């Protein structure tokens, strides 16, 4: 007796006779190639079940791990005893049919296909591979909106932005504090093109202080409201081409360029006019200059040409030209700078050098101090004038009091009984003349004082150093006049030379030997002396590159751009002219 197994491709479909299988005895069902009945379906296990034929049917037993389904229940063993009995392995239905000629017949119907078909898988793949770019239009709008809000709206709403129609430079003059409390983040900073210079950073939080109106460039008035004394470059009446009031401060002074203000200081900026100054200012008396190292005239110090009036003039230095500046002094360096030294009032020997009398200005100033009598002269020059009274001293620095003080000394002495009169011997009277009468005390004091003036002022005490004027004939014999000492504070007023920056140099490194100088001669170093170290703007190895503004000021403060209160521009120039001369 053999079991006939028939296969149907799907439920309800007729069995395919070509697949009929006749089996004797028990048989195995599974996916394994070695299975007697092989079902290639994932839902069927490799070795799924064993089948025993029975009298009128089969017993199906699941192999360990596998299971069967009969009548909707999961079972391990199923019996197919009557025709129509069914058990399910995976998706395959095993049905017992009515017995045939040779024995029982088992119909195996394949279940619905496992998983997706090829077309569905293709569709799923197509979907998995699809992607969508972000919505570009929406992103564009979003970015535009964010930029507009943060970069346009926020700064515009900042309270420090200029928007008023009224200039606020009047407030600037009083250095009004920023109108908004400074905070770490202020949206107006999003518009700032660069850091403020250190000098302006203090009030730099208030944009409107300088930028008074939107879309209007910074006006000079905003700058001048603080910088009131800023001067013209030259007399704007004589040289209207350089009237700075018609220029913008900003042309040379650029703000928002970092810690240091960007100020125009290129040689070319100056040389533009000064290389050929007559081209710009026909009536200029200045010499052409282009570069300190190669094209700069020899210095022309300003000297006092007439000490009595204080009149000055400029004298161009050069070979064989003595630069003399009147001082009303008769002082000579040659007599003091003696290598062996000179004796002071106490009899000690002092050797004088430059530094004994000339000291740098205190506080690092650029000029040297003027020697003073008290500090530098009195040690040797005692200003005695009366041999009988070596304790009497002339007052220094008070020429107007001189006569009254001397008269005072003598009057006091005469009043206390001292006699300065010569013994009058009638024998020495000239024949025909009355013998000189003995002087009255007042007259005696006066004549002594006059005599002392004549000797000390003219010769010993004052006259050693000072020039003077004698009393006119017939005038008061006491009316001697010590001339006012006049010394130029600087001989190069147009330059900004500073000794402080040159204190590593010896005096003689620049100044010629002053011992051989004549009276009133100014021993000023010439330009060649400077050029030992300094060159023009173009750098040279081992030299100091120096532009025009290294020594010269562009703005001439004696010619302010702004008239003061109650002052008109016209009288401003007159005043300025007066100051220059």
């Amino acid at each position, binding site marked *: 007796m053999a079991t006939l197994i028939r296969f149907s491709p799907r439920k309800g479909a007729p069995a395919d006779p070509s697949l009929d299988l006749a089996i004797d005895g028990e048989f195995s069902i599974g996916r394994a190639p070695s299975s007697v009945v092989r079902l290639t379906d994932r839902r069927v296990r*490799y070795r799924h079940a064993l089948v025993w034929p029975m009298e009128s049917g089969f017993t199906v037993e699941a192999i360990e791990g596998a299971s069967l389904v009969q009548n909707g229940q999961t079972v391990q063993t199923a019996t197919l005893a009557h025709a129509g009995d069914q058990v399910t392995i995976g998706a395959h239905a095993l049905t017992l049919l009515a017995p045939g000629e040779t024995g029982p017949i088992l119909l195996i119907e394949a279940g619905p296909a496992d998983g997706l078909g090829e077309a569905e898988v293709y569709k799923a793949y197509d979907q998995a591979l699809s*992607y969508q770019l972000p919505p570009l239009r929406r992103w564009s709008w979003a970015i535009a909106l964010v930029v507009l809000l943060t970069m346009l709206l926020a700064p515009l709403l900042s309270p420090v932005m200029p928007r008023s129609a009224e200039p606020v430079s009047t407030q600037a003059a009083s250095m009004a504090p920023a109108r908004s409390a400074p905070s770490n983040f202020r949206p107006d*900073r999003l518009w700032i*093109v660069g850091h403020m210079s250190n000098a302006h950073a203090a009030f730099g939080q208030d944009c409107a202080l300088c930028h008074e109106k939107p879309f209007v460039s910074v006006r000079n008035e905003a700058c001048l409201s603080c910088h009131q004394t800023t001067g013209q470059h030259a007399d704007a009446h004589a040289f209207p081409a350089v009237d700075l009031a018609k220029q913008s401060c900003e042309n040379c002074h650029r703000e928002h360029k970092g810690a240091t203000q960007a100020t125009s200081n290129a040689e070319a900026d100056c040389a533009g006019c000064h290389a050929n100054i007559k081209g710009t200012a026909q009536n200029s008396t200045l010499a052409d200059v282009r570069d300190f190292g190669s094209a700069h005239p020899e210095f022309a110090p300003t000297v006092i040409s007439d000490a009595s009036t204080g009149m000055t003039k400029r004298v161009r230095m050069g070979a064989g030209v003595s630069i003399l500046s009147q001082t009303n002094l008769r002082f000579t360096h040659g007599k003091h700078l003696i290598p062996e030294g000179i004796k002071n009032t106490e009899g000690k020997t002092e050797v004088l050098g430059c530094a004994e009398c000339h000291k740098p200005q205190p506080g690092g100033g650029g000029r040297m101090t003027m020697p003073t009598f008290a500090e530098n002269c009195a040690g040797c020059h005692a200003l005695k004038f009366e041999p009988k009274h070596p304790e009497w001293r002339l007052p220094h620095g008070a020429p107007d009091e001189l006569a009254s003080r001397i008269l005072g000394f003598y009057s006091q002495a005469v009043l206390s009984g001292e006699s300065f009169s010569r013994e009058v011997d009638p024998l020495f009277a000239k024949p025909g003349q009355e013998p000189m009468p003995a002087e009255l005390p007042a007259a005696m004091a006066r004549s002594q004082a006059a005599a002392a003036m004549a000797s000390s002022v003219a010769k010993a005490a004052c006259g050693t150093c000072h020039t003077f004027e004698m009393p006119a004939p017939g005038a008061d014999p006491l009316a001697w006049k010590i001339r006012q000492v006049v010394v130029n504070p600087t001989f190069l007023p147009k330059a900004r030379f500073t000794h402080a920056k040159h204190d590593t140099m010896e005096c003689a490194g620049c100044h010629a030997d002053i011992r051989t100088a004549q009276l009133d001669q100014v021993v000023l170093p010439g330009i060649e002396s400077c050029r030992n170290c300094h060159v023009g703007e173009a750098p040279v190895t081992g030299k100091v590159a120096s532009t025009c503004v290294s020594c010269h000021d562009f703005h001439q403060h004696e010619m302010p751009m702004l008239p003061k209160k109650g002052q008109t521009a016209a009288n401003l120039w007159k005043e300025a002219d007066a100051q220059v001369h």
Partner: protein
Amino acid sequence: MAAVPPPPEIHRSVLTYRRGLYGKIALLLVAVSILLYALHAPAGGIANGGTWVGYLLGTIGLALIVWLGWFGIRRRQYGPKMFLLEEWLSAHVYLGLALVVTATLHTAFRFGWNVHTLAYGLMVVVILSGAFGLYAFRRYPAAMTKNRNGTPYKSLIEAIVALDFECRELAMSFDDETAALVYQATCTLPAFRFRDLSSRERVSPTLEAPARAAIARLRALVGKTYSADQANVMPLVQALTNRALAVARLRRDQRYRVLMQIWRVIHLPLTVGLLVALGIHVLAVFYFW
């Protein structure tokens, strides 16, 4: 025999259009910009966008950006025009690259946390993304053809599906665990993610985890199973490997296609942002005139 005229070129690179005429114009612009910047001595020695050279470079830059942005409108216009779109693109590419130099010199290398530097930064990113687009369009089409080996995209997917079913069928001869692994490894494709664009897979195709596990198991089976099964091991390993290679090829293909588009995500919206920031930059400068 008369010389045969060369066939008309079907494709001209934007870089060689008119023998690189716009490249030469761009080089000239770069040279002029550098020369102006180098020779100009600004007041105080501090170069900036507010000198006459600065304004000149800035005006050129502004005009260029507006014109470059106009390309987005021109490329949507059809019909006869004086200049072919090809010509526009050639000029767009070259002058866009030259803009980096002109605009950088306009900034005079002065940057800060402000709208001015924002505009500059946006411009640089836009140009960089555009440069990547140029690179992608010059390199990837050829790379894609080589990668697909002439197979159309659709056939590439069909081949994978066929391999899936082949693997599954072959897996039927193997034990339950192996079959389950092969089933896991087939008929499935992880969805595309943008972050995969930068994954290592683009360098060497790697098997996805289930396929790797299946192959490892199959290798372990060699010599342990019945001789009847042995014969099936190699075909299944081969089929799984072929599938992995086909998937890698498909992914590479997709990566190229995405990269040829993805730069536009940066290029276009940031161009709009740049135009807005540029407008504010100009406004702010003249507001504080």
